[in-house]
């Protein structure tokens, strides 16, 4: 049922080695109509399709009725009615708990948490209720229909509470999935997969890209498989792994590195939990070097998990230590944001020192 869109249509070079990918035949690709959309419009389209195709799906959260603070839910309330698209009071714990219950009754509950920084009151519900429901009831009950969407990441001036990247906390919880798209086209396909996946999913949307990223997005219903990483740029000297908005920065670093003769392979992890170890392993076995980059603080960030796993699997093939170019170990700062962020130059420096190890 999952139709993977032919990535041949996309602008970025598409290499061949994605593990287990299903490909759409070229004829289907030619019949697609695409439209230039930004991230929030692509997500909006995905939500429209989700609600259209499943009459038992609901979208709720703070201020979603008028379209949401980032306009991701525009038009939904008007089209599907206030019984399916509605605002909640200001209570994240209550909202997610409520969503779990709704999902347990076989519905698709699409919860919006206004900023990922506010997800912590709901952390107990996600970790203790959502993640363990199927397991502890011996598969009698599950809340697979639950999808939690939250904008995450730096936005230039967000400060402590509008910029956080909490993905690492959730990657530590067996029972839920964590997905982060890098672009509008990816977001639409991934979000539809998340909504239809029979497991509770936390979907982090890079808020910096809501308006900044524009891409040709097919108008029809399509899904991108979860737990499949994508090699978006092939190379031979070093593997770079990232997700979300950070990939744009990493791509620029790769282009700069190329001018110095370093060929970089860039992988978009897409799903962080459960993550596609095989694709990253295959790539590192080819290049012998790994660099991971994310906005979240380096200590305990998800890069640590990737590093440890690759070390286990590729130890003898590694030419240099795994490099992590991440946010600093401080609260997300206000005026110091440019110093805190893992910038292109920091990544470029790390690429060079890893290659020259």
């Amino acid at each position, binding site marked *: 049922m999952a139709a993977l869109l032919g990535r041949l249509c996309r602008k970025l070079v598409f290499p061949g080695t994605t593990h287990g990918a299903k490909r759409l035949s070229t004829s289907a690709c030619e019949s697609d109509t695409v439209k230039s959309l930004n991230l929030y419009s692509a997500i909006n389209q995905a939500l429209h399709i989700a609600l259209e195709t499943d009459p038992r799906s609901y979208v709720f959260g*703070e*201020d979603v009725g008028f379209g949401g603070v980032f306009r991701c839910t525009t038009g939904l309330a008007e089209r599907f009615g206030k019984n399916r698209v509605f605002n909640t009071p*200001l209570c994240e*714990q209550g909202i997610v708990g409520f969503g779990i219950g709704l999902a347990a009754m076989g519905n698709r509950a699409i919860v919006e948490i206004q900023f990922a920084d506010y997800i912590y009151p709901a952390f107990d519900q996600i970790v203790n209720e959502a993640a363990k429901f199927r397991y502890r009831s011996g598969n009698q009950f599950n809340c697979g229909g639950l999808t939690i969407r939250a904008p995450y990441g730096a936005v230039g001036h967000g400060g402590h*509470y509008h910029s956080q990247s909490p993905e690492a906390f959730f990657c530590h919880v067996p029972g839920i999935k964590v997905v982060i798209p890098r672009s509008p086209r990816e977001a639409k396909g991934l979000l539809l997969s998340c909504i239809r996946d029979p497991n509770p999913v936390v979907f982090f949307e890079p808020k910096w890209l809501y308006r900044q990223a524009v891409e040709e997005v097919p108008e029809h219903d399509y899904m991108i498989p979860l737990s499949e990483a994508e090699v978006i740029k092939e190379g031979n000297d070093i593997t770079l792994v990232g997700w979300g908005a950070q990939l744009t920065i990493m791509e620029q670093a790769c282009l700069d590195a190329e001018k110095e003769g370093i060929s970089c392979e860039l992988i978009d992890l897409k799903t962080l939990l459960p993550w596609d170890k095989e694709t990253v392993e295959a790539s590192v076995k080819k290049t012998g070097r790994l660099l991971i980059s994310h906005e979240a603080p380096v200590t305990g960030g998800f890069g640590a998990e990737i590093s440890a796993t690759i070390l286990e699997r590729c130890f003898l093939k590694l030419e240099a230590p795994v490099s992590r170019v991440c946010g*600093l170990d*401080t609260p997300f700062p*206000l005026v*110091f944001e440019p*110093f805190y962020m893992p910038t292109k130059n920091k990544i470029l420096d790390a690429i060079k020192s890893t290659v020259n190890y």
Partner: protein
Amino acid sequence: MALSRLSSRSNGITRPLSAAFSRFLSADTTPITIETSLPFTAHLCDPPSRSVESSSQELLTFFRTMALMRRMEIAADSLYKAKLIRGFCHLYDGQEAVAIGMEAAITKKDAIITAYRDHCIFLGRGGSLHEVFSELMGRQAGCSKGKGGSMHFYKKESSFYGGHGIVGAQVPLGCGIAFAQKYSKDEAVTFALYGDGAANQGQLFEALNISALWDLPAILVCENNHYGMGTAEWRAAKSSSYYKRGDYVPGLKVDGMDAFAVKQACKFAKEHALKNGPIILEMDTYRYHGHSMSDPGSTYRTRDEISGVRQERDPIERIKKLVLSHDLATEKELKDMEKEIRKEVDDAIAKAKDCPMPEPSELFTNVYAKGFGTESFGPDRKEVKAALP
């Protein structure tokens, strides 16, 4: 007390005070009794009287301070639009009466803790304009050394515990502070402020239960400006009688646009809390600006509504009418005072603009009390870029 507040506000820069003010500096505190605009509505307690004891000095101080607060917020608006203030900025204009009335009823030993709409409360607690603007623009001289920004103002000496970005989270903190005060027999209370949006947070009820169970001197103040960001109170709460939502905890509904009603209520609440434990105050107030500087404030309410409130209930206008009707100053003197205030604010902004940004090393300070040995490396693993202090 009004006198010392006045002198601290001039930041050590002596400037000629307006005629009206200087006239009354030396005057005796002629007592004046003011009737509040509306009676108090009470829940599980007897409401205080509508007659508020005040003085000519207090009236004038109220006017001056509120006008200063108003001017400061409007100046912050322009600074934000000029991109000198970045991040998020939540303005308090329209709600000044709550800040000023509360201050008039309490001492600096009583603690105040609030959410992110904290500029005026900080000023009321004795903060200076320089500290405000420096912090807003992220400069070293700011009250939080430029590291907090608009949402994180603090003043330890005046028991002002900030300044919190996550709504509702400050209320259990307030109850903890109240416990400490009770334990130390300080005869002080804590005012934990929150909004009508935050009133639906679960942690509020947890904090209420704890305070009531242990008879803590905690006063929960709901600054009900009727909109939680863009959501009207009736769309977020089954019961928008926030003063009643304490159930077993007494409550009082107050006209938050009337500084004297606020003063009376806070005085009453303090006496109550010291004897009987928690009480909820609901301040019926209004904000003219949107939720924050990114919100025009007109998509979820009509311009008529905003201008209606400005005409009928503006807190500064009310005080101005009282000042004039009690012959404490003439229109001209009040206008001169406002001009003085404008200049004071402009001077503070100019001074703050000259202030330097914090040093880059400040990025790493105060993460922990002392460092835990973490180092931040550059790309070369052998080169330590910075060690957390």
